[in-house]
């Protein structure tokens, strides 16, 4: 059963963390202001900068504020969530308290009578062999179960180490992305083609790469459209242009909504 809506807003890669308060505030404002305009809000992963278990910091003021925003959001619009590469440990406890519905990655959704494939996007970065091996292992339920049984301090320190690694990669990606020469951390045509090959009308939406754009692509006999969601960052204006946007879909089509200049 494919979920069907007349309109939807899609976001991803907000990277919520107490150390990025302006970005978090924009998300809270989004939940109040823009989100209720759509029948459904789809969060395609990396809502959080990191997640080491539903029990971690569940009572911190920041987590409380996030929870309040998500709970309120779920009363105004149907809220879906896909795991990202940073918050794939968001579990049933958190989903239940916030009223979000978890969708498998990838999933199909029908918006305004058109079908879209939605995915976080990290699984499409098949040129990054090292990452795909890492992903293969960390997505194993038994390993996740083991990890979640570790003391919180251990989990945090493991997450910190992984994050410092991926953060330096992210910075590098941001820096050279405009030269379009960093193929390794972008999605591959082969992976996209594999995903769309069974769909009559192929429309793919993902986040993860922080390279928002609308693409028309082709590989062999397959053609598809691909929309990439923007990451959000209002907290590093000294080095990065502030950015936050959402993809809005209704009967008028698909378009980006700029959340900085609005």
């Amino acid at each position, binding site marked *: 059963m494919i979920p069907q809506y007349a309109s939807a807003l899609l976001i991803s890669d907000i990277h919520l963390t107490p150390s990025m*308060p302006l970005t978090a505030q924009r998300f809270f404002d989004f939940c109040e202001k823009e989100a209720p305009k759509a029948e459904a809000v789809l969060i395609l992963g990396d809502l959080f900068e990191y997640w080491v278990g539903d029990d971690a910091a569940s009572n911190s003021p920041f987590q409380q504020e996030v929870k309040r925003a998500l709970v309120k959001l779920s009363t105004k619009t149907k809220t879906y969530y896909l795991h990202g590469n940073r918050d794939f440990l968001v579990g049933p406890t958190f989903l239940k308290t916030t009223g979000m519905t978890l969708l498998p990655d990838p999933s199909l959704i029908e918006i305004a009578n058109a079908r879209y494939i939605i995915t976080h996007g990290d699984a499409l970065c098949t040129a990054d062999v090292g990452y795909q091996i890492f992903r293969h292992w960390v997505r194993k339920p038994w390993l996740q179960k083991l990890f979640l049984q570790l003391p919180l301090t251990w989990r945090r320190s493991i997450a910190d180490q992984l994050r410092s690694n991926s953060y330096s990669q992210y910075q590098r990606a941001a820096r050279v992305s405009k030269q379009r020469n960093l193929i390794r951390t972008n999605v591959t045509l082969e992976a996209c083609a594999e995903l769309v090959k069974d769909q009559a009308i192929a429309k793919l939406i993902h986040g993860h790469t922080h390279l928002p754009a609308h693409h028309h692509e082709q590989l062999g006999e397959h053609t598809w459209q691909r929309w990439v969601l923007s990451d959000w960052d209002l907290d590093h204006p000294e080095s990065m242009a502030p950015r936050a946007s959402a993809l809005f879909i209704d009967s008028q089509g698909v378009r980006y909504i700029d959340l900085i200049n609005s």
Partner: protein
Amino acid sequence: MTKVLLKTNHGDITLSLDSVKAPKSVANFLQYVKSGHYDGTIFHRVINNFMVQGGGMTAGMKEKRSGAAIENEADNGLKNDRYTVAMARTSDPHSATAQFFINVNDNDFLNHTAPNAQGWGYAVFGKVTDGMDVVDAIRKVKTGSSGFHQDVPAEDVVIEKATVLEE
């Protein structure tokens, strides 16, 4: 009113500086103007709907030596509204030296909200009172990447001469 003229290769920009609300930033800026520091520097970071930043690099993206960092006066009540001028800095709130930027949008998120690293904001110390059209021309120039820097104008936007008009 303290006024500074920036003669650029796109035209003249007049800045009116608020030495009452931002005394340290204005004194610092004037000192760089008088010493000729800004002459020949470029607007090296241009983001159309955000801001244009300059005063620290010369043509070819060479960083120019600057003086000591100053205290951040972002808590002075001045807002980062369109056509205001503010001190640029690193992620450390109190790290501004010579580089400044002109807001080309109402950038509320740059305003002071709290006395900590995340909320300190960016110190506005004046505004453009003449040559808004020049600022608009600069913000629309074509940009690309240069070395480690993004949003660098493809053709240099040069501050040919900075002079104090009134003090």
